[in-house]
């Protein structure tokens, strides 16, 4: 698709750099306190930037239950055999060294009047500003027959780690000529091209190890991101292996039976060997517990990611409802920096610069066949709005596709260093 660079001027909103007046702190604590819940793409970045840029003027506590964060980004490459699981695991030592107080626990409650977060292990942490970046949870019964108790029989692998390893083990154990099924999610969900990159990586693995195996995808959507690029790639590299059943062909009318390992698509039941169910998603539970969600997501103000419900609570990344940005690691990282700048301004009076957001999502279709889609965004009074963008084209040269893939490797090193120090 050709993107238009300039449209025309319509309604305008003024964006300026402002010097904020530092806020009055609760109970005369010497230093302002920021608590960040969730040490992923949004939370780790926000914690690191606030600690780094405030140079000790702000106490930053990060609450994250896991000691090793496995990135969802590149987890599909692990399924395809391009990465080892250790390659996508990151620990929090760098953040601790950078002055962030890392607490390995679950946040289980938020008292907005007392301004405290309670922990599963007991105790409360006080905050002046609270940043929630808890990622996603799944909507119950979104796919009839599946709930979270079925995640071992039919993994989602949409939070990386043990789920991803389980899906890989099931893929490797498939009988010769077996069937791999995916139930794709409804909009909006994390990583729009993610399910389709996964299909590509599964096909890559099967082509080499189980070439008569088949992949069926039941999709409730009529179209998806980078569709023309994926379909071109599937036809070129994996001819006859992938059957994508979109909304028009009943892909949305799907149910599963985890005990029998069957998938029923538009009335037709199929016995499968692996079934990757990616259910509809919603904001990580803690956002709802904090009372900052409206429906499945947490609406935020575009200029600083503060929630519409509470000016002292910010929501980043997948859990937020901000407008046009796709739910991606790149987006969460970009939003975290805007938020960090604003939170620092509010607490210490440092300069607050205009919000700028960007995103690029790379996907790997086959060895050295990388594609990407990217955009820039700005804050309008209503939302974060897309203002410009690009996408890889069909029919690009092998050299360009290889360079695009190599770029994604560079990006991975860059963003993980940016998150974890």
């Amino acid at each position: 698709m050709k993107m238009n660079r300039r449209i025309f001027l319509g309604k305008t909103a003024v964006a300026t750099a402002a010097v904020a007046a530092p806020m009055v702190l609760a109970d005369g604590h010497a230093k302002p306190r920021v608590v960040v819940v969730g040490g992923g793409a949004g939370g780790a970045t926000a914690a690191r930037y606030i600690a780094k840029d405030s140079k000790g003027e702000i106490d930053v506590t990060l609450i994250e239950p896991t000691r090793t964060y496995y990135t969802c980004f590149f987890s599909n490459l692990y399924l395809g055999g391009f990465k080892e699981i250790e390659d996508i695991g990151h620990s929090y030592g760098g953040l601790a060294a950078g002055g962030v107080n890392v607490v390995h626990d679950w946040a289980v409650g938020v008292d907005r009047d007392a301004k405290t977060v309670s922990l599963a292990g007991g105790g409360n942490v006080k905050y002046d500003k609270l940043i929630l970046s808890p990622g996603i949870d799944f909507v119950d019964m979104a796919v009839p027959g599946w709930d979270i108790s079925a995640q071992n029989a039919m993994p989602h692998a949409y939070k990386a780690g043990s789920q991803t390893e389980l899906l890989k083990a099931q893929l490797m154990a498939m009988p010769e000529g077996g069937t791999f099924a995916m139930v794709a999610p409804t909009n909006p969900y994390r990583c729009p091209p993610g399910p389709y990159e996964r299909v590509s990586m599964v096909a890559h693995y099967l082509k080499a190890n189980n070439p008569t195996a088949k992949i069926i995808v039941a999709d409730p959507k009529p179209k998806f991101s980078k569709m023309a690029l994926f379909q071109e790639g599937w036809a070129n590299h994996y001819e006859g292996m992938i059957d994508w059943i979109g909304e028009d062909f009943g892909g949305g009318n799907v149910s599963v039976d985890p005990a029998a390992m069957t998938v029923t698509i538009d009335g037709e039941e199929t016995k499968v060997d692996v079934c990757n169910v990616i259910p509809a998603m919603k904001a990580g539970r803690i956002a709802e517990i904090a009372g900052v969600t409206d429906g499945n997501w947490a609406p935020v103000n575009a200029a600083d990611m503060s929630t519409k419900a509470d000016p002292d609570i910010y929501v980043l990344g997948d859990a937020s409802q901000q407008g046009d940005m796709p739910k991606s690691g790149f987006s969460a990282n970009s939003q975290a920096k805007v938020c960090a700048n604003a939170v620092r301004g509010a607490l210490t009076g440092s300069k607050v610069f205009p919000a700028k957001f960007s995103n690029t999502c790379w996907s790997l279709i086959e060895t050295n066949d990388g594609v990407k889609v990217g955009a820039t965004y700005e804050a309008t009074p209503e939302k974060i709005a897309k203002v410009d963008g690009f996408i890889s084209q069909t029919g690009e040269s092998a050299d360009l596709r290889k360079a695009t893939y190599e770029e994604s490797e560079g990006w991975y090193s860059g963003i993980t260093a940016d998150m974890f120090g």
Partner: protein
Amino acid sequence: MVPFLRLYFSVLAMTVSTVAAANTLGDPEAGKKVFAKCKGCHQVGEGARNRIGPHLNGLFGRPAAGLKEFTYSKSIQRAGSSGLEWHAETLDAFLENPRSYASGTRMSFRGLKSPEDRHNVIAYLRLFSDDPANIPEADPTATATDHDIDQAILAIQGDPEYGAYLSSECTTCHQADGGDAGIPSIVLWPEDEFVVAMHAYKTKQRNHPVMQMIAGRLNDEEIAALAAYFNSLDN
């Protein structure tokens, strides 16, 4: 300093600045009222079907004459096969005077002379095409701030703190420790070369879509602030 840079900075010094603005396409609420004029022939929204004119769901990014089930005029078919796609800007031109934009279109409508009406109806129609949150490559829903005449930013020129803030966008991809696998290092890069390179991306003389996009929305002062910030890291 090389002559190119001298010229570049003198042009900069003459730039007249106005207020920065992030622009929405128009007001969709007002556009809904304007759409009353179109409703006799076109449907949009859930369950919309082709009537006298084609339905307008998914219009943005669609090639002219792009619906298989609708019989278009020869003129619109020709426009489609020669590459016309519907985006905010092509729709704006078409709606101003349909007959002069595509002579021979069967759309017997005089056009919307008021730019505001056009912007509003376009903003309304945009609601019924792909959402960039789900399909990132979908058409924009706003226009970029004109960074070259951004007074708020000019006022903070040369601010190293601003350079540091802007640099956080770079470090999503370029490693701060200078690692250069897949994505080149930008650490320890001479200031003037940095400015020339960024300017070349901005004017699309250097070819990389991500960098063209990122540099395209940096004004000259911001590029200078970034260069100064990265340069300050060497010392």
